[in-house]
């Protein structure tokens, strides 16, 4: 069968069982948009390529499948850059397809030409420039395979316009050959045995669970390991939902704005079982002072993460699902041999007492001002947690991670490693497209919201509704918090204003429903109203106390031992050298 390169592209996408693509057409990608009309693939026409990129990420986060974004050459591809970098940092499987100027003029500074492969080389897992339409199907197969296996990540496929127009004989490659790509997925049994032994010998173990557990769909295995081994669990920002927060062994989120129980449990532990996590600086604080007494079992599919920041006593390379299942089996065996779970009641009691003494807290005065945590907590209560919650980056993100009580994986979507403001609205769009059966709620900051709000138009025209709750504190709140704490309250370029833009009117202009709550009394009614609307998007403008800060907090570069639980724990820093850098 004779097909064009563009037709081959869509046949290949269909072959990969892609149901949705997020994108924007343009000159060089034009040929691909013609066969799209006849394709089974749904194209969601976004308003900005960055939005398309984050939507593809949101789709991948929520579904576990590869998200796809499409853009034209030059500016189109360049606008995908932030989303690709975000996906690289957070190991999100996406494939980006970009048009390129025709092969004969590549390198000629042609109209809308950019060397997108060169630009995205360090921020993709791999990328391709396809020079022959006969290679399109094979390249797409490789791209999807690379994006979704091993440590997932973004792959970009750049196709010149003439290659899209080239006529070829269609052939679906049954097999692909990637001699340099063979991820190790099976954990070494001998290492697993050593790990189980180390757990048996531990008096103060903690499971340090990262996003890899969600990526590997290993939540059930994790639950069995934790429950049967009586092992307390911390879930990082990337792993929220991997383990139910309501469980007695759940300690919540560790890190810079993590809870005291999680942060301190890791500091005092004699063993950390790190599962699909990378000892990121937001978790460890000052690395040299992190978990000083702990031995480390480090399980990761990426060997480069093992020993990168912290040496591992027992390294295990492999897929989290495989390794955790093996570890569970081996630990169960050793426990049976030993006549039961080792007695760690003292440790578990200590942890429980920390959970009682140091919960996340805030004070909502009855007469206002409205506290951001209150709005988020009420939202959580009203949805009963039965929603996919998406966050941007900053205070609102931390508060959402703190006050949302997760019970299932893939119900939390956010930008972790790259810290991409503006992530929430387009990612919510992508999550809602992936999971039309689920309620999707974006909790966003007013600063973040303004970076990508245009995708509300996409939501309306494509009929992909979701709720956006803007935690509007009129500021770039996290930066403001740092200036208050570390820059002697010298506020520099952080004020945005409560009412420019008018978020209710803006929502209405986009065909969404705009709602507002300024007082704690108004919160429940507004949320109830928002949840009653299912046929279009809703934007809630929660005008919250601009002075509210996010606690607990471990100042950047400080030891996790120096966690500041609340505003009363602050000490003045007059020494500029103590002012940490972000």
């Amino acid at each position, binding site marked *: 069968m004779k097909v064009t390169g563009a037709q081959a592209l869509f046949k290949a996408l269909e072959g990969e069982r892609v149901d949705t693509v997020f994108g924007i057409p343009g000159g060089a990608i034009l040929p691909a948009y013609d066969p799209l009309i006849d394709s089974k693939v749904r194209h969601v026409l976004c308003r900005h390529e960055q939005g398309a990129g984050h939507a593809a990420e949101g789709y991948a986060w929520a579904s576990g499948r590869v998200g796809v974004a499409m853009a034209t050459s030059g500016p189109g591809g360049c606008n995908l850059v932030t989303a690709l970098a975000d996906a690289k940092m957070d190991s999100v499987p996406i494939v980006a397809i970009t048009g390129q100027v025709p092969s004969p003029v590549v390198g000629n500074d042609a109209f809308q030409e950019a060397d997108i492969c060169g630009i995205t080389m360090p921020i993709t897992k791999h990328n391709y420039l396809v020079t022959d339409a006969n290679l399109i199907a094979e390249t797409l197969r490789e791209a999807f395979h690379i994006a979704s296996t*091993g440590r997932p990540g973004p792959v970009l496929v750049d196709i010149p316009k003439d290659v899209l127009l080239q006529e070829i004989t269609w052939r679906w490659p049954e097999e692909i050959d990637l001699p340099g790509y063979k991820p190790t997925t099976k954990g070494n049994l001998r290492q697993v045995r050593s790990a189980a032994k180390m757990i048996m010998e531990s008096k103060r173990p903690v499971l340090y669970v990262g996003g890899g557990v969600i990526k590997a769909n290993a939540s059930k295995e994790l639950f069995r390991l934790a429950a049967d081994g009586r092992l307390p669990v911390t879930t990082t920002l990337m792993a929220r939902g991997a383990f139910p927060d309501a469980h007695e062994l759940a300690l919540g989120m560790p890190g810079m704005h993590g809870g005291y129980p999680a942060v301190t449990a890791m500091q005092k532990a004699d063993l950390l079982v790190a599962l699909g996590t990378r000892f990121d600086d937001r978790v460890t604080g000052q690395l040299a002072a992190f978990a000083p007494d702990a031995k480390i079992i480090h399980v990761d599919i990426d060997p480069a993460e093992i020993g*990168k920041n912290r040496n591992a006593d027992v390294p295990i390379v492999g897929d989290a699902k495989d390794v955790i299942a093996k570890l569970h089996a081996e630990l169960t065996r050793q426990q049976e041999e030993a006549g039961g779970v080792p007695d760690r009641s003292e440790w578990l009691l200590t942890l429980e007492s920390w959970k009682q003494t140091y919960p996340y807290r805030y004070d909502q005065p009855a007469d206002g001002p409205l506290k951001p945590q209150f709005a988020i907590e009420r939202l959580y209560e009203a949805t009963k947690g039965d929603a996919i919650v998406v966050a941007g980056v900053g205070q609102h993100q931390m508060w959402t991670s703190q006050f949302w009580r997760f019970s299932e994986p893939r119900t939390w979507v956010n930008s972790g490693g790259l810290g991409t403001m503006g992530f929430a609205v387009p990612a919510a769009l992508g999550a809602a497209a992936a999971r039309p059966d689920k309620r999707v709620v974006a909790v966003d900051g007013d600063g973040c919201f303004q970076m990508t709000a245009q995708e509300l138009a996409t939501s309306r025209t494509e009929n992909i509704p979701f709720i956006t709750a803007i935690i509007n504190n009129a500021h770039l709140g996290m930066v403001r918090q740092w200036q208050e704490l570390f820059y002697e309250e010298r506020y520099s370029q952080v004020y945005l204003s409560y009412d420019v833009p008018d978020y209710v009117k803006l929502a209405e202009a986009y065909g969404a429903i705009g709602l507002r709550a300024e007082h704690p009394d108004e919160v429940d009614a507004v949320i109830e109203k928002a949840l009653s609307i299912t046929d279009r998007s809703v934007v809630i403008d929660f005008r919250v106390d601009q002075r509210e800060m996010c606690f607990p907090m471990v100042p950047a570069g400080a030891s996790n031992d120096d966690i500041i639980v609340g505003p009363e724990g602050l000490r003045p820093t007059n020494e500029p050298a103590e002012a940490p850098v972000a």
Partner: protein
Amino acid sequence: MNGQLHTISVLVEDKPGVLTRVAGLFAARGFNIDSLAVGPTSDDGLSRMTVVVHVDRKPLEQITKQLNKLINVIKILEHDPGEAVERELMLVKVRAAGEDRPRVMEISTVFRANVVDVTRSTLTLEATGKPEKLEALLELLRDFGVIELSRTGRIALARGDKGIRERGARSKVAAVGAEEWTGGGV
């Protein structure tokens, strides 16, 4: 410069951009490449890079692990000093007029270098050997005045009867706890 000199052989697929990927990775992770030589191998479609870096043991491990993650990288071999044959080729144009000419020729003979170009005032020498030998030659030639210099950078093959593809990647299996170290890709 910090750290030790390490020679790494990297077997790569001969695909567009692979040199940029490898070089870019070093740059992105903050390592200076001392020298880098690329050429075809006896296998069609495969090239071999020899990279020399000044780096401590620990960052070197990170670099090799990151290199392994590149899709086009098939195999990496770090050469232990003394366990590899290392060679380099150098072309050097040196002032050699009048009385200097026989003296340069004499030095060239001692180092088994070939004269590959002659002018009234200069000689161009071609020399091969271990990098230390080339350094020694160069040191002597500097007295006469080196006009121009071009070096290939180091290439290396491990001693013994095995090729790079048959070799285990050091003792990584134990080091990282893999069931089977396949030596590429994550």
